[in-house]
């Protein structure tokens, strides 16, 4: 943001950073093989849904595209609004055959069709769900604005608490495979992830 923007008080909403979503499609192999963290077979993308008919029709088209892209492998799509007014598009692999590649391809189809429609700045995050050896949910969140990943491990026993130690371990374990968000204050939690 330049001096001129500061003086006039005008700024644009940041658009998506260069895409590093597909880093997860290779990183999960390490997660599974070395750290016993298995894909849960589900992923989601969260964005601000504009209340315009044009945006709604973009979303309908998007859903069709995703179904066409992932339908062969049995991946299903559903849409959900959360209490903050954000829209989630949730992808489920066919039961028993989790495939992170399929999910990444599907989410990429969603994000690119939203970007093509000129609403790239509405994309917030993509979330991939994993399960560790203790059956705890582990999420890897991809921040579209920053193009970085970070782990998010909600505490199963306390609501609104996260297991920071575990997250930092994951950062150390996966730092070489996933482009991790370097600023810890940007590891924003997403409570109530519907996957």
């Amino acid at each position, binding site marked *: 943001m330049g001096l001129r923007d500061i003086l006039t008080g005008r700024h644009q909403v940041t658009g998506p950073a260069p895409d590093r979503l597909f880093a997860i499609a290779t990183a999960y192999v390490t997660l599974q093989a070395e750290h016993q963290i298995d894909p849960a077979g589900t992923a989601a993308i969260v964005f601000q849904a504009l209340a315009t008919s044009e945006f709604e029709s973009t979303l309908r088209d998007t859903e069709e595209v995703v179904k066409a892209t992932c339908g062969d492998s049995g991946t299903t799509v559903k849409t959900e609004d959360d209490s903050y007014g954000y829209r989630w598009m949730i992808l489920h692999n066919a039961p028993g055959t989790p495939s992170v590649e399929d999910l990444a391809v599907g989410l990429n189809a969603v994000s690119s069709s939203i970007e093509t429609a000129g609403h790239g700045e509405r994309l917030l995050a993509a979330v991939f769900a994993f399960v560790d050896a203790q059956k705890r949910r582990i999420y890897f969140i991809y*921040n579209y*604005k920053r193009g970085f990943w970070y782990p998010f491990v909600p505490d199963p026993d306390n609501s609104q608490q996260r297991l920071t130690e575990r997250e930092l371990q994951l950062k150390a374990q996966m730092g070489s495979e996933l482009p991790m968000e370097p600023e810890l204050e940007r590891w924003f939690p997403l409570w109530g992830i519907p996957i």
Partner: protein
Amino acid sequence: MLLTLFLLGLLYVVFIGVLFAAGAGAGIIVAVALVLLLVQLFASDKIAMATLGVKEVSPAEEPELHGIIERLCVQADLPKPRVCVMETSMPNAFAMGRTRKSTTVCATRGILELLSPPELEGVLAHELTHVINRDVMVMTLAGFFASLAALILQFAFFFGGGANSEEGEEDIILVVIASAVVYTVSFLLMRALSRYREFAADRGGAVLTGRPSALASALIKVTGTMERVPSQDLRSAESLSAFFIVPARAKKSLYNLFADHPPLEQRLAALERLESQLQSAV
């Protein structure tokens, strides 16, 4: 609030003028002005927090507020600010802090209870836009330059005019009048600047959430309640008015020229234009 602020500032300038006329060196005066500026820039948020009974809240205490702010921060690509709540029934919100890294966003209990989540999100996006636009910094610096302008004028009087070695009563009066005039003009300009920044923040906030109408509806709700709030509450909260989303006063009068926020109708009209642009965009 307006008169107080005006008189306080006037007093400050007059005081420095008198100091100067009484023989204090120019260096001392500039130093005093600089110290005041630094205090304002670095400590005003802490002073305000201490005097207003603003307290920081954890995500566990206010999950919804934190959730909304976190998502807006992702959307605006900002680091997370400190989140505070002020225990008063008056519905309002404000942002403090000079940089993106050291920001405090504060909402009153009243606004948390009054607004629906999308409306609250609109209000918080407005406040975060102040942070993005560095409005606290801009306004503080603009205020500093206004004071400096007054000082420079005083210098001009002393060194540009018939530089007598003996200062008489008349000189002092002249200095005081001149600085008062400069101060009055810069005060009006500051107000105009503030109104402009408010429009910019409305716009930026609405663009950030993609829901101009939610912010408009929040403004209507908040002002509707503001006018019914007893004035005693208002007075105790007056000193922060410049950073509030809606100024803390309930009078309708000749404030247009002096107001630090634009009138509600104009803000609503601007948001309505934004919404129709959004709806018709292909």
